[in-house]
């Protein structure tokens, strides 16, 4: 009897791994992406060959498949901000990087965005930032979008802050932002308003240059 029971269990055990194996195979088939050539990228971006090499080495080391999906992106980003929850902001950032809306960042997207952020003109940087804030890509930043972004930034701070975060702190921040940016008080910020207001603010101008020497 024990033999009967034993053989029964053995059979079910054997059937299960074969089903799992098929699933595993499906999961493991990932698309590997190879970027365009070095010369092309050098022409398209503001980096020279050496910098592109360094960037690609780091990129490939992290993502051997050549693409970053949103999950990985969030993980990477949350390692830099261990105190709080960086996933919301990482999501917006991912969408900003993923200009082709393909759901994954390839090396070209990565390098293009970095080129703007590190080597672009002020206007380009501000435009990129505007695109980051404009979640639905309609050309206007309204209060809800801004509140989402600012809440996401505050989420990264985590719980233990001084002074303690209150629930309406993001909202107040957004109010202040709109006070500054929305020139014609129509409730939305357009690209021109944004760029104009930022150029008036010395703080912002100075901080845009802050990361010039990152590479």
């Amino acid at each position, binding site marked *: *009897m*024990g*033999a*009967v029971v*034993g053989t029964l269990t053995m059979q079910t055990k054997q059937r299960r791994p074969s089903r799992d194996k098929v699933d595993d*195979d499906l999961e*493991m*088939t*990932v*698309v*590997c*992406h*190879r*970027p*365009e050539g070095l010369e092309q990228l050098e022409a398209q971006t503001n980096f020279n060959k*050496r910098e592109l090499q*360094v*960037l690609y080495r*780091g*990129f490939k*080391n*992290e*993502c*051997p*498949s050549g693409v970053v999906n949103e999950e*990985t992106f969030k*993980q990477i980003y949350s*390692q*830099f*901000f261990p*105190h709080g929850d960086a996933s919301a902001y990482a999501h917006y950032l991912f969408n*900003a990087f993923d200009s082709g809306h393909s759901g994954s960042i390839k090396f070209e997207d990565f390098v293009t965005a*970095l080129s703007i*952020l*590190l080597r672009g003109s002020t206007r380009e940087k*501000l435009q*990129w930032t505007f695109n980051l*804030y404009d979640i639905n890509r309609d050309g206007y930043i309204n209060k809800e979008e801004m509140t989402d972004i*600012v809440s996401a*930034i505050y989420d*990264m*701070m985590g719980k*233990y*802050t*001084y*002074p*303690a975060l209150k629930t309406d*702190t993001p909202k107040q*921040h957004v109010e*202040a932002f709109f006070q500054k940016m929305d020139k014609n008080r129509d409730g939305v910020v357009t690209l021109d308003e*944004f760029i104009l207001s930022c150029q008036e603010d010395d*703080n*912002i101008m*100075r*901080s*845009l240059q*802050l*990361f010039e*020497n*990152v590479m």
Partner: protein
Amino acid sequence: MSQKTNIKNGVGAEVKLVVKVFDLLPSPPDGVTMAAGVAAWLPFARAAAIGWMPVANLPMPIAPTDKNKRQDELIVLNVSGRRFQTWRNTLDRYPDTLLGSSEKEFFYNEETREYFFDRDPDVFRSILNFYRTGKLHYPRYECISAYDEELAFFGIIPEIISDCCYEEYKDRKRENAERLMDDLEDSKDSKLPNMTFRETMWRAFENPHTSTMALVFYYVTGFFIAVSVITNVVETVPCGSTPNQRDVPCGERYTVAFFCMDTACVMIFTVEYLMRLFAAPSRYRFMRSVMSIIDVVAILPYYIGLVMTDNEDVSGAFVTLRVFRVFRIFKFSRHSQGLRILGYTLKSCASELGFLLFSLTMAIIIFATVMFYAEKGSSSSKFTSIPASFWYTIVTMTTLGYGDMVPKTIAGKIFGSICSLSGVLVIALPVPVIVSNFSRIYHQNQRADKRRAQKVQKARLARMRISKTGSSNAFLHSKRNGMLNQALELTQLPFRMKLSDEGSTGEDRHLNKTTSLIESQHHHLLHCLEKTTNHEFVDEQLFEQSYLESALQSLPSRSPSLSSQEGITGTCCSRRAKRGSRPSSEAHKPSHMHPHTHNLQELSAIHIQCGEQRTLNTSRSSLNMRPDESGGLNCKSSSQVTTAIISIPTPPTNNSPTSPEAPPNLASNSSAGVVKVSAL
């Protein structure tokens, strides 16, 4: 990774690979603030921080500069002749190891322009791979102590070994430790400087080979155990026929003799037990041990028998008690190592034995039922009930086959044969497990090391947890330590001269070196986030403290300033005196380091905030905990703005003489006496 590639033509084409992707992201090794690979993404995260800039109202802190900004170069590591090459950045990922720190400069060879290490190149392979991939693997063919030595030399803690290899590593380490322990014990017996009489006795009891007295004692007790057991056995043998019909067992014939024998044995056992109890280092633990329980059970029946009178009622119980005398044979386990191992094996195979018992019970019940119903029809069948069939099933399954119960019907015979076949299989299955267990234990001579292994696992997890919390605290720590460095980076500070006069720059430079570039960049990033949101990261305790204080509404007043100043300077100086003091007691660096240019903007920022922050001020602890990046000298001291400035206007005499932040510097600026509360 197994790959099958179908490469289509064209550059940049999508290539389908079947790739075994184990994990795209390396998990952060313990003891390091950030995963090595993730460090490669730091430039990207910093660049993306531009997205915060329009939202921020405060100016951002200055970015740390790469002082010796050189292009990434290949460095050559010559390990006993085998040359390894890697990028310098790869090694810099782990700054608290030999290769990642400046310690490797000691091994630099100027003529050949390479780093020479006189170590094992095979093991070095795994170590270098650790820098490359972030995972440390333990190769199976490697000797555990050699590997440990290499790890210690290169400053890598073994806890970092990744999970795939960690168990193997721990097992090997434990085996090695046991072997060393055994050797140690053998050699330890010879030396006994001066032990108390009690300790000597205990050692004599535990290791009979230490002295002749112990050996004599050992053999004497063994002899008496044997005598006692034989006595019990012989008692029941019918010896000699009396004129009566039936044979009388010897026990009843020579009652007195046996009684004397029994008494003698029990005396010896009692004395031995009491002596052991006296000599035991921990009496409570001794009394709970298995051997002592056996001892007690062995001698108790005698005393109970003495106490009880010869009642008819209790004589039955008295007889039962005599059965327990057979437990004396278990006392032999002190004398036999093999017996102890057997007992330990059975204990450790408890689950297999339990399974065996359970499956047997199931089988017995099933077959007994079947046999009962099969034999119900036949006449004069012995299978009167299901429990009665249990006996048949057990006898058949264990292939004993006494033959006192046999099935007569055809169905019964068929089921009976199935029963005996399955019995063989069910019993045969768990037995090899038990056998292999026994052999393993016997060969390794394990004692109670399973328990020790669990403790080690707990310790490992605790260490990992500590280093993980350490990583998130690293920013807070370095904020306090690093403010000094950052202030030094700021250019053209008049106070800088004063600082250098104090001769503290040496210490500061030392502080500077302790954080790697990557760490400082990471901290700068977190700093920018703080500025963007106008809030700061604090410890959990400080957070709770401030939370409590905010509940107590207290208005800002000038008077506490003096006491709070004391606190600040006191802690400031103490911080100077001893670096790395506890975070809660550290005040931040005096704000007068910061350039004046920040003041005006900060004031505007602070104005916005002051409405909320009014409550959080003037309590001493809150003063202590705030870092004062925003601190600048509040030239226009407005009374309603309680700004956080840990500036120390006037405290003249309270300061300890070692305080280098000379208050006179500030006194000139803020004569109005601003209250210092960092109301950020």
